[in-house]
């Protein structure tokens, strides 16, 4: 009986810390201040989207959907079509991926599955550093090494490749490879060679995660500015050859923004920025979804 009476009498003491009391403790103040800072992140992001939308209104109304299908980019005649830039962006990003994906996945398999722990720790450290190299330096190397090598041929994809390697090793690493370790050991003991077990068990297991990291890398490659601007040749033409000059969305913004001849020109450039934003937004969304799916599946299997 005594025990039952103490329970209700205890709860008011802990539960009735009034708002005023908590205010005096500083909890509410701290909560409010930190909330304001957290909210400002959301605010700034919304503002960014609004600003892009609002600042490109003129161009959006004038050209409508035609903006995406017109090949002419003529600031003097105020004719603006985004097609050459969209084409150039997709081509450079795809080239970068074609070069980077096999290398990245190969390196990731080696680091996660095959290298001894100490070696892979060391290599991973250097690959992280490689990711920290700013893109203007890739552009510098591209300008003075690759472009002269190809003379007038330009292949911007190449420079962008290596910066994205870590993106592949990163997520693929954590996401699926390691959880499959046990299955791998069983496969090997059943008579599979080391490579067969890696390729047929671990890689399919991590497939969605790998795909996710590819999307992530694609988003980065699409928005890459400096490395591309410095080597792409900056010519708004659509060419079937990978080795002729082109132009990308980010590069045209970088080159023409400060020299825009009029409001419409500026707004057309901002609309290009909006297009770039939406593209990367979509790709990032898909990538995150794929990575979440993989890690949940990985966790489930590990538990089972």
């Amino acid at each position, binding site marked *: 009986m005594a025990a039952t009476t103490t329970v209700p009498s205890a709860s008011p003491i802990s539960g009735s810390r009034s708002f005023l009391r908590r205010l005096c403790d500083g909890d509410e103040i701290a909560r409010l201040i930190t909330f304001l800072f957290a909210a400002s992140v959301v605010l700034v992001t919304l503002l960014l989207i609004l600003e892009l939308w609002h600042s490109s209104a003129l161009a959006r109304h004038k050209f409508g959907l035609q903006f995406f299908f017109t090949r002419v980019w003529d600031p003097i005649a105020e004719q603006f079509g985004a097609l050459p830039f969209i084409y150039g962006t997709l081509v450079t990003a795809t080239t970068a991926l074609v070069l980077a994906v096999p290398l990245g996945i190969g390196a990731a398999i080696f680091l996660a599955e095959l290298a001894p722990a100490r070696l892979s720790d060391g*290599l991973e450290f250097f690959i992280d550093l490689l990711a920290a190299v*700013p893109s203007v330096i890739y552009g510098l190397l591209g300008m003075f090494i690759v472009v002269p090598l190809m003379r007038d041929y330009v292949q911007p994809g190449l420079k962008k490749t*290596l910066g994205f390697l870590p993106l592949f090793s990163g997520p693929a690493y954590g996401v699926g490879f390691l959880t499959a370790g046990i299955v791998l050991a069983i496969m090997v003991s059943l008579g599979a*060679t080391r490579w067969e077990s890696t390729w047929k068990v671990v890689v399919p297991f991590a497939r969605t995660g790998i795909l996710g990291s590819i999307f992530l890398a694609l988003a980065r490659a699409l928005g890459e500015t400096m490395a591309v601007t410095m080597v792409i040749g900056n010519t708004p033409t659509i060419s079937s050859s990978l080795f002729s000059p082109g132009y990308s969305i980010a590069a045209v913004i970088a080159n023409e923004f400060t020299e825009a001849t009029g409001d419409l020109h500026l707004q057309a450039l901002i609309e290009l920025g909006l297009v770039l934003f939406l593209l990367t937004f979509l790709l*990032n969304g898909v990538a995150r979804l794929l990575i979440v799916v993989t890690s949940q599946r990985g966790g489930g299997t590990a538990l089972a």
Partner: protein
Amino acid sequence: MSPRLRWRKFVSGLMLTMTGVCALVAVSVLFFILGYLVYHGGRSINWDFFTKLPAPVGESGGGMANAIVGSAKLLLLASLLGVPIGFLGAIYLAEFSGSRVAFVVRYAADLLNGVPSIVIGIFAYALVVLPFKHFSTLAGGFALGLMMIPITLRSTEDFLLAVPRALREAAMALGASKWKTIATVIVPAAYRGILTAILLAFARVAGETAPLLFTALGNRFWSPGWNQPTASLPVAIFNYAVAPYEDWHRQAWAGGLVLLALILVINIVARAILARGVAVPRA
């Protein structure tokens, strides 16, 4: 050993070697970049490079003093914007928020993190350059600060969440209020991680060029105060590289070397801080 098995072993060995080569190529690229920059830029790095203004076109010599100071000012502004918002926002996410608010904030931060840097530049142009009517250090610092926010926020939050629950409960049980727990127990326990997060975010924006092109613009002279266009190391490298003068190219290499060295050192220091101790002290 049957031929079939021998073939399988051969394929296995071959592919394993190939993955090793992939890893090796990736790593050697870093050393190639570093070596190439040292080879081409090393000779142009002298006292003048750090202390003199750029020489007029046609004259040799001169340095990038204004770009180095400009970069320092821009990064100071960026840190003033990015670190408080990232750090305090992360405290809110890790300690105070409900799951729904946290989801919205995290989503916004990830979105912001994914925005191409050139688009951040457009945003800073519209928000800071247009109202003030000219390019400025302020606008460049704002653009870089925006990029620092999501990086600092997300990794600081991770480190805060890694602090064991027992530490929180112990502090609360001693009667500490929530904010006191945060200020005296949780943040000190996670400080190595938080410092690493801030340093990595700093290193990341230190090399950013695209958002500065039409916010800080560039300047061949000193930029007094905060409301003038300013030179910065990455933009100077870009401008010097695309210019047709041999002497400027040498300066670009030197600038690239200084920038890369700075960024690599910060990265290594940040990782060393994290590796030196477990983020959470064992009581």
